């Protein structure tokens, strides 16, 4: 009898052990906290599925995902990937359109695909396949010191100096005067040491920073007439016929705008994301172009208290740039795991999760319903400005060659900005030739 009971217990235990499916999620550090929290919530509702989230830095994440896809090892079941790597990552991601067709029973009736913001959803589509649900609709914002811009003393001084009222710049040309005014070495009465914190290092940062300057030209009437509409796969760097658009007089103008602002920024070529964030958080600068998520850091910075009075948020003077993230499923894993992974990514991008991750972690929403939600708008001030930004933001190429193009460009852009290379059309044409070589390889 005892033996029978023991065997029964063992059988039950083994059934329970095998019943639990474990899915492994690999995520970028920007999304990891929210994904870990969502995983906990998901497991409460789905005790038969265990979710483990592994955090990797931006630099390590792609090679890790690609190595996994290339080896078909299935080390990770869910990939949290930057949409600009869509072309490369798509080779190892499940087509969710097809998966939904084949597994209608797994689809949550309240998921509402039409509620997903069009660009956020489209950036997860590659070659007609939905290779990822949109997770983080990141975009660049223009943070400024609200208290300084509203101070009557500075308003009066600025008007005396420049003959126009002090206001949050709407173009980069306007930003130059404002940045100059708030730089101590040009205006000894400036309340801040520098006007603006710019990040032009030789890292991936440079590639998106250039777009916030080139974007206004590329998307202008002249730009659209000359280069054609922006292709969803090739992005704003390219013309409609897939030639480098920056190798033009408009591309040069973008560099001139960047150079014009550099004297009013602390070490622009040596500063990256972390440094510029600190410069604004510590009150060293009056303005900074930054992503959505640093808002929580600014909000808790002692130098920016009370936050509601000191932190202003506006659309980018030029154009913003998209920094979206998606959640995709590894196609080289078992069907059972794919189903569990689908349940999780569906949960993590649901209406409820979209609002919760915004309020708790400042993860920019991918759904219209969240943008329109009053609670969400009150919780994070930039929610109100997002619709206008999303309507015309620029984006980087999503083709598989993107990383190589990015590396060549980052180096050459830094050389142009440092004066090592002359700012001429010839320089840009040479870079365009390098791009062509990569694209035709």
């Amino acid at each position: 009898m005892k033996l029978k009971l023991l065997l029964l217990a063992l059988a039950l235990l083994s059934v329970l052990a095998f019943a639990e499916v474990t899915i492994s999620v690999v995520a970028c550090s920007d999304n990891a906290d929210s994904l870990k929290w969502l995983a906990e919530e998901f497991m409460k509702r789905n005790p038969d599925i265990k979710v483990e989230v592994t955090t990797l830095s931006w630099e390590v994440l792609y090679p890790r995902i690609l190595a996994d896809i290339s080896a078909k090892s299935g080390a990770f079941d869910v990939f949290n990937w930057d949409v600009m790597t869509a072309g490369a990552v798509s080779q190892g991601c499940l087509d969710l359109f097809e998966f939904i067709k084949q597994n209608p029973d797994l689809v949550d009736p309240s998921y509402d695909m039409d509620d997903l913001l069009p660009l956020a959803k489209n950036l997860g589509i590659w070659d007609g396949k939905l290779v990822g649900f949109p997770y983080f609709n990141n975009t660049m914002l223009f943070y400024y010191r609200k208290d300084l811009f509203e101070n009557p003393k500075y308003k009066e001084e600025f008007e005396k100096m420049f003959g126009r009222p002090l206001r949050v710049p709407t173009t980069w040309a306007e930003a130059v005067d404002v940045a100059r005014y708030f730089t101590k070495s040009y205006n000894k009465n400036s309340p801040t040491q520098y006007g603006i914190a710019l990040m032009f290092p030789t890292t991936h940062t440079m590639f998106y920073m250039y777009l916030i300057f080139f974007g206004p030209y590329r998307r202008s009437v002249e730009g659209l007439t000359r280069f054609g509409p922006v292709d969803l796969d090739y992005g704003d760097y390219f013309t409609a016929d897939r030639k480098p658009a920056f190798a033009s007089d408009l591309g040069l103008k973008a560099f001139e705008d960047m150079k014009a602002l550099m004297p009013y920024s602390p070490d622009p070529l040596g500063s990256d994301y972390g440094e510029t964030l600190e410069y604004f958080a510590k009150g060293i600068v009056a303005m900074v172009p930054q992503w959505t998520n640093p808002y929580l850091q600014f909000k808790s910075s002692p130098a920016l208290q009370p936050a509601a009075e000191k932190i202003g948020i506006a659309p980018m003077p030029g154009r913003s740039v998209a920094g979206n993230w998606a959640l995709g499923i590894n196609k080289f894993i078992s069907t059972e795991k794919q189903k569990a992974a689908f349940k999780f990514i569906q949960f993590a991008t649901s209406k409820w999760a979209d609002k919760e991750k915004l309020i708790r972690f400042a993860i920019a929403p991918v759904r219209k319903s969240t943008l329109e939600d009053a609670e969400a708008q009150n919780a994070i001030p930039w929610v109100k400005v997002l619709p206008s930004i999303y309507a015309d933001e620029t984006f980087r190429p999503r083709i598989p060659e993107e990383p190589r193009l990015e590396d060549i460009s980052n180096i050459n852009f830094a050389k142009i900005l440092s004066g090592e290379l002359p700012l001429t059309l010839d320089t840009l044409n040479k870079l365009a030739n390098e791009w062509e070589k990569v694209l035709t390889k």
Partner: protein
Amino acid sequence: MTSTHKRTGFFMVLPAIVLFLVMTVYPFAYMIYNSFTNLDLSKSGTGQFVGLRNYTDIVRDQLALSSIEFTALMVLIAVPVEMILGLALSYLIRGLFAEKALRSLFLIPMMVPAAVGGFGWKMLFNFIFGPINYFLNLIGLQSIEWFGKINTARTAVMIVEIWQWTPFVFLILYAALQALPKDILDAGKVDGADGWRLFLHIELPLLRPILYVTLLLRIIDVLRTFDSVYMTTYGGPGSATSTWSFYAYKVTVSYGWNIGYGSALCVILVIVSGILINTLTRVLNIGRELGLSKE
């Protein structure tokens, strides 16, 4: 030795041999194989044999060539500075009151993980909050954009490298100085040599073999410089501080995922290192200096 002993011996070293084959020989051979293919992780259907194309591409690759420039600068500037500083420290520390404490203190940079050291230096060099600029301001100098200008960025990377690896030179030379034959030193002293003259005419010549080996080890290591660049400048501004190893990493892992081309870069590094080491060994006659050969 009996055949049983031989067999036992063989089985005892077998795990080490297998480990060496799996962890070193196989990856190395696979890297060489990859260097002749167009394997690119970002594209499906790659991995075909392309002959010497990756190698001929390197010759035309401006970024690869500029990486050679900075790597060569590191060898020509950082290594001699490390050697001189390491030698000076090992000489000057002897007989001091706090010799043991100083000896331990000097070794700390070498024991700090490269990533931690690099991050620490990044903070020290910060334009606004960095203590280095703070002290420069105190003595009336302007703040320096350490990572924003070519020359200062190169200097910064070299400072990190020198800080981290001078202790290695110090450690070897300090140990070598302790081990010098006492009778020769005593004979020198009897002949009237002391202090600087004793060092220059007796100790330094005796140290020569160790100096050469240390120099060789440092050159090999500097050729592989990666961490200090990765943690501070990321090769910038432009490609000013990109070393060969760092460029290979970017091509293979960080930006390119171009395993074929990256493997070719790594193979070239191995070949260049091999040639350099061989040439130096011959020129400096290291084998004879160490008493390993009669040439």
